[in-house]
């Protein structure tokens, strides 16, 4: 169980159970969504207040919800290009399993690299955010 506990560590479980960015805001500027047809997981991401607030409406597993939460923390105030850069670094990190100091708390998801079928769960919120930011261009 120790290996599992590594992925389902405190930070991930805490953010899954007590999300801080969940729910659709009354007003938002941009919206994107992501679907995982394999499991029926679905996420809507909302960008509000000139990119300083990101919310998500999620129906999915602990990994996806924690990833959406940590993403919402990590992208506050970033430009779309900086978000893209962070997304690429995040995707590289979850695929390789090598933590990247620049990614801070997002590294909590590095353990997902051991579960190939679950990497998509971690990256889905970022795909939804990318779709939202496409609308800004």
């Amino acid at each position: 169980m120790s290996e599992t506990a590594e992925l389902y560590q405190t930070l991930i479980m805490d953010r899954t159970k007590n999300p801080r960015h969940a729910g659709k805001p009354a007003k938002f500027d941009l919206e994107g969504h992501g679907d995982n047809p394999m499991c029926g997981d679905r996420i809507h991401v909302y960008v509000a207040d000139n990119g300083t607030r990101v919310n998500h409406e999620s129906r999915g597993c602990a990994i996806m919800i924690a990833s959406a939460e940590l993403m919402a923390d990590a992208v506050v105030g970033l430009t779309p290009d900086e978000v893209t850069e962070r997304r690429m670094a995040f995707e590289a990190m979850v695929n390789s399993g090598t933590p990247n100091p620049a990614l801070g708390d997002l590294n909590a998801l590095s353990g997902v690299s051991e579960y190939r079928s679950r990497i998509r769960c971690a990256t889905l919120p970022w795909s939804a955010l990318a779709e939202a930011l496409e609308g800004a261009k």
Partner: protein
Amino acid sequence: MSAALKTESFDIAAIRSDFPILSQTVHGKKFVYLDSGASAQKPRAVIDAMVNSMETQYANVHRGLHWMSERTSDAYEAVRDKTAKFINAASREEIVFTRNATESINLIAHTYGRAILQPGDAIVISEMEHHANIVPWQMLRDSHGVELRVAKITDSGEVDFASLEEKFADGKVKLLAITHMSNVLGTYAPVERLAKFAHAHHAKILLDGSQAVVHRQVDVQAIDADFYVFSGHKLYGPTGIGVLYAKRELLDAMPPFLGGGDMIASVSYERSTWAKPPYRFEAGTPAIIETIGLGAAIDYVEAIGFPAIAAHERALTDHALAVLSNIEGLHILGSAQDRGGVISFTMDGVHAHDIATLLDRQGIAVRAGHHCAEPLMGRLGVTSTARATFGLYTTMEEIDALATGLLRVKQVFA
């Protein structure tokens, strides 16, 4: 000859020793395989039959005039006889080899569906179908103008005959396409009654036997099935080989599915004529090695015998339903009277994928998701479930390991 084949009674230890993969470890833990409903593991007898064919007796079938091709054709065709006997088809010509059950259903939709069914005719399926028994009919509906109707299931997960009556009421229904055993709920459909019902309404019946054929003796004549389909890989055989059974007069009236070699009587640039069934439906070089593997799988299952297999699996299912019901916050889907070793469940506050990942780390393989039955998930009010499915090699200890594993999952999410 394996130990299991020699014993009269059900010797689970001997049976397990027939399946080399079951001694593997996963993440350093004993491998507990509870995903046989997705695809079953293969006994040594199947592996050996396929390897032996490639090492000692292999050439293309139905073509060569040489010794090796004739022997290979004999071995290939012997599996047709074996399959016919396995499901008690009236003749070997009623057995068409396909790639899998999905291809079998698509074959029926493309040939029977387009040539025999007319625009305006209706097809009825149930709410508990696999996508393989939904999508081909939607494609036929969109291209050919037939109507697709969905009969309800009851809350217990059984066929709702009142709904079926309603769907058939206007006399337009020409085909009832329904599962013999739900891959999500484990429900066995009352197939004899359904066949009588369909025939009384002048409709044909197609049964998706992908799950059922593994667990019960199937007799297509006793059922009076018009079409019956299944895959080899769930029956302890290899992937890439499936079966379509259809009554002879139906196959005779059906045009070809794919065109090519082996399915013709004669070919000229002006026109070609079709071979008789079953060859009309087997264009190109077939899955020779896989067919031989299917034959070995049928031999293996029959040597153990369905009475013993069914009794073992009934005990497993009863035990699983009992121990899983004891886990607080765990919900088993469906409560059909007649159900087999397919158990889908949800856990309060835990997504099915998290269940599967946490069990996997304990060496326990279950499936999680919508199980290729998205509309049924909607009917049940869930988006995904975890699913444990049993095979003839599943043990009581493995069911207990699942229960223990699920308690650990609960701890992580507590």
